[in-house]
């Protein structure tokens, strides 16, 4: 357990933050309305609980039992951390119900009522998660809430308590939205990729160590169970005929399907992989020349490429270069897969690199796709390149 940091548990975010949020600091998940961002706070809570921290979750608009249900639905079994997990119930009194939670806000429409609870909460816990800070703003008034959250983050800092907050960015006045962002040490924006309606979702760090930054957007999906996973919509696997592309796709994928005839791909291979918090769809092309007319379509919208070559067949290497052009994949993050390394005539990684020097600065990964050797390593290299931090 690292008491110095709270890991967020959000894929790649901890790498960007240098390990997580230092204790005493604060992180804001700044969420566009309509984007399912509240899971981020829950996932961070789960990671904190796993590392043995005492964590309290403040619920303002859902009954505590719904919070627990939501966590279980995400696969976060809070039950095993009984002593470490508690809820501030700022909902029940709002609808005139009693609460049996350890902390209860008597009047959720009064910021003073929160204040009375927060003193104890900061004193008794390592991490405080606001399920929805914007709801407190709506219920108690924006100016008053902002003033108090500033004070709570200061108090938390003095006691080495980390504060994490989900905040739905409704169209508040800029003085409110900017004021909230200024209050937190780290701000992660969670927004939608929209084409008339939100089709995809991404997160991106816009403030770190109290300084404005612009980090790469990372697409994500929410899995139940599973929580937030970084998402790569399309990775292309291409290369000459008989290089082992279909075997590579199968070996890499959690599940896969191939459209083939007598063992040769005649349309495409498709696979899906989940690895270390990242999920990706893999599309494999056929390698025979007669399928060249469809390669451009198959390559469309790919965000990364595996170029697979047979390490025993250097004569096919120029064809590999040609396929990269046909799929219009030049310039995308690319890993050269030097496959069939188990065969006795296989060229070494260095020799393959030497002979394929026409592809400058390309990553190379030796693999034996038939056994899976080196395949996940290749995936990690490509993911790092796609999500270059």
């Amino acid at each position, binding site marked *: 357990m690292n008491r110095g940091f709270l890991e967020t548990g959000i894929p790649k975010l901890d790498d960007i933050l240098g390990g997580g949020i230092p204790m005493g600091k604060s992180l804001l998940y700044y969420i566009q309305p309509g984007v399912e961002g509240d899971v981020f706070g829950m996932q961070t809570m789960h990671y904190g609980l796993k590392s043995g921290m005492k964590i309290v979750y403040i619920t303002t608009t859902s009954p505590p039992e719904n919070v627990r249900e939501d966590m279980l639905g995400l696969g976060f079994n809070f039950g095993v951390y009984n002593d470490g997990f508690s809820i501030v119930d700022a909902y029940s009194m709002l609808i005139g119900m009693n609460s049996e939670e350890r902390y209860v806000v008597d009047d959720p429409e009064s910021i003073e009522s929160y204040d009375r609870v927060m003193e104890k909460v900061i004193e008794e816990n390592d991490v405080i998660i606001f399920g929805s800070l914007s709801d407190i703003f*709506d219920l108690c008034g924006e100016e008053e809430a902002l003033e108090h959250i500033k004070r709570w983050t200061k108090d938390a800092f003095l006691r080495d308590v980390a504060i994490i907050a989900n905040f*739905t960015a409704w169209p508040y006045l800029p003085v409110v939205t900017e004021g909230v962002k200024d209050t937190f040490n780290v701000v992660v924006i969670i927004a939608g990729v929209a084409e008339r*309606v939100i089709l995809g979702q991404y997160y991106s760090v816009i403030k770190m160590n109290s300084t404005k930054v612009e980090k790469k957007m990372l697409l994500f999906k929410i899995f139940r169970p599973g929580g937030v996973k970084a998402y790569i919509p399309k990775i292309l696997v291409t290369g000459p005929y008989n290089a082992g592309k279909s075997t590579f796709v199968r070996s890499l994928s959690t599940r896969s399907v191939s459209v083939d005839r007598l063992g040769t791909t005649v349309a495409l291979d498709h696979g899906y992989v989940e690895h270390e918090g990242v999920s990706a769809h893999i599309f494999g092309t056929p390698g025979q020349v007669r399928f060249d007319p469809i390669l451009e379509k198959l390559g469309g919208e790919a965000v990364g490429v595996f170029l697979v070559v047979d390490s025993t067949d250097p004569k096919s290497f120029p064809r590999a270069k040609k396929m990269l052009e046909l799929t219009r994949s030049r310039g995308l993050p690319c890993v050269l897969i030097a496959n069939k390394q188990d065969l006795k005539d296989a060229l070494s990684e260095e020799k393959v690199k030497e002979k394929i020097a026409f592809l400058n600065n390309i990553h190379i990964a030796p693999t034996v796709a038939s056994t899976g050797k080196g395949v996940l390593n290749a995936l990690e290299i490509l993911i790092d390149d796609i999500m270059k931090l």
Partner: protein
Amino acid sequence: MIYHELDRHQLDDELHALARGTNVLLIAYDWEKYGFIDGFIRDSLRVKGGVVYVTDYPSRLKITNRRFGMIELFRTPPMERTDSKTASVINLSKVSVYIRDNLRKLMRDQLRESKGSEIDLIIDNINSMFHHDSYLKNAVIRFIRVHMHVVKTLNAIGLYIIDEKLPDKTLDDVIDVFRDEVVIRII
């Protein structure tokens, strides 16, 4: 603002004549709301459109159609879980997520089936969201503004139903949000 005072029958004609991308505030009290909503939804589904219906009183509607999505608002947690999405009437973030999910599904289905892309969003009713004090009123108005923009972007029709029994100032504030849109008072 385009303002009409219409009876129940004139209302149908007026709504059918609306340009896509219009937001309509329907002000009424003690009228045959459920008959009207049921008819409006069925008409939309009949012409292959899609409807997202946000309601605080769903039990009277029995519509089974995959181009119909319903979000139930509750003031106190429901005793039993239902198939439709449920959210607390004050959890407007969650309501927004559910609306977005339904709209996305409808858009994808329509693209896949190459059918018409007409979508309607009905919020029934705004009164139930004004559950608390004036601060929450601002939250509801922000919520309405966000979804009016979504309706415009989608070239949809947005129907926002409100009972006239709200305090004058609150009703005036809501009407003001629709100053560039259509307001209909049912008489």
